[in-house]
């Protein structure tokens, strides 16, 4: 093994790590939008409870996905989720994200009904912020 080969391994590992981080960032974006939309409505407590429950319902359970009851805010939860997704195999991370999101939406739907769930989730704009319509008010 020459010196160049020894140098190439960390570089490749860094590249792979960057790719996984980028992949995790892309996966976490919908969760951030969801959090921005739902937390004002159902509170941090409501969001955290729904997310934690959804993570526990994953089948089969993902050992690499950390569920820590000490995480009491959506920010802490999503930061940990992004970290976990970045550390996982990209294909597994994507599948887990998709399944987790599906369970979360179904859990929300079971509580407030599918129609209102759809209504609330579609309220999120493309950039994740609620639509502003102040200008059409009080004419």
């Amino acid at each position, binding site marked *: 093994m020459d010196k160049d080969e020894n140098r190439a391994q960390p570089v490749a590992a860094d590249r792979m790590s960057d790719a996984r981080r980028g992949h995790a960032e892309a996966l976490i974006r919908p969760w951030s939008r969801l959090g921005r939309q739902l937390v004002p409505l159902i509170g941090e407590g409501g969001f955290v409870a729904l997310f934690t429950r959804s993570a526990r319902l994953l089948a089969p359970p993902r050992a690499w996905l950390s569920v820590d009851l000490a995480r009491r805010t959506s920010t802490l939860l999503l930061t940990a989720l992004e970290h976990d997704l970045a550390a996982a195999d990209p294909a597994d991370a994507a599948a887990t994200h998709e399944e987790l999101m599906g369970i979360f939406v179904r859990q929300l739907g079971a509580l407030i009904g599918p129609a209102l769930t759809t*209504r609330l989730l579609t309220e999120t704009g493309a950039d994740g912020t609620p639509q502003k319509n102040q200008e059409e008010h009080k004419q």
Partner: protein
Amino acid sequence: MSGKVTLEKLCTGVPGLDVLLGGGLTEFSFTLIAGAPGSGKTTLAHQIMFSLASQQRRALFFTVLGEPPLKMLRYQQQFSFFDMDKIGPAIRYVNLADDLRAGDFSGVLERIMREVEDFAPSLVFVDSFRSVVQTARSGNEGLWDLQHFIQELGSRMATWQATTFLIGEYSQADVEANPIITVADGMIALSHNLDEDSVVRKIRIVKMRGQAHMAGAHTLRITDDGIRVYPRLLTPLREVYQTVAADLHRVPTGVPGLDDLLHGGLPLGHTMLVSGPTGIGKTILGTRFLQAGAAQGEKGVAVFFEKHTARLHNAALVKLVQDGQVTVLESLSLSLTVEELLDQLTEAIERTGATRVVIDSLSEIGLYLAPEFRYDLRLSVFRTLSLLARRGVTALVTVGYDDNAPNWRFSIDNLCFLADAVLSMRFAEVEGHVCKFLTVIKVRGTSHSNELREYRITDDGIEVSPHVTNLDALMSGYPTRREPHK
């Protein structure tokens, strides 16, 4: 032009509430909705919000530490007024629990203002405001904080031209010493009163600045359609005192001999009280009355307060029901309010187009009524008969009474004063037989026979003798044979 500001009124969308409020809610007012847990505060707030909210008049609903928002949405959407399409463009929910936990009142106030400026609502709700109050510091400092917070909120919302509602779990004693009631323009108090295991919901407008509201406690009901308030008012009769009927239209009672005594039948729209002891034939007369209507193509409604098995043997009634000519109303509730009864009657009359109603009997209705309505049976009956009069239906209402002392009494609780006509049915002992007699005691606005006639109950119904009885002292129960005129 006076130059005085005009207070615009908002219709609440809660049936009956605008009557109590004196025409509706004053725009930009600051109203406290108070009451014990489960009294309907959140439902009332939601019903008002969904009725008033639109894209041009948006509503912001702040939830605090009371009912979790997820549960509130879960349960409130069961009501028919919950319009999913309004969530988002017209109604936004905001949870303040974290803000309240994190800091002082000023932080909460600033968060409220940020949301208000962002969504620009015309309606603002804070549920439950009691949670906000409970986070106040103890002692005078806390009281001052709270007073300042409420004044600030009230003035900022008024300046923003938002009609504001604070929802809280307050009792009457709470609010009297509470700064909220001083600042609030209006207060709507909800309660549910327990009496002998029956609960009756009530609503009271304690205060409403700038308008003449109705005082007193009024019954409310919560159904799948939300809250409905029943103001303690009678609806006026239409066209009364404007015309005098030249000739009363009379309807057949189903008993020809009785029609003779009534000089052609019961006047249309009258209520006849049929009084007599048990077994005298009151229910049979009621059935004949409905049959007579059905024979003319009229629909009928029968309200029964006797036990169900008694009617299983009434083949004539069963046939009327099976043929769709009569609708039977029966309460399964033993905590019935008069308002529920009137609602059921109104619905049945409107749905079927009924022109005849039988209520059998007022003696047993007390077994079904919640205590406060049973205590004042006369008022309950008065309200029921007033509804029938307003509807213009012709009614036959039965009442029984103690049969151990024959006398000139015609009903319990002086109910006979409430009816347009009174028919008295009596037993009397005659030569070893218990015989039946009837007489018309009164018919308002028209002549009638004053004869006492014997009658028999046969397979064909009630057969009234065509002649006046030849017995005297019948009403005493111990008659004597009248001597023939010489």
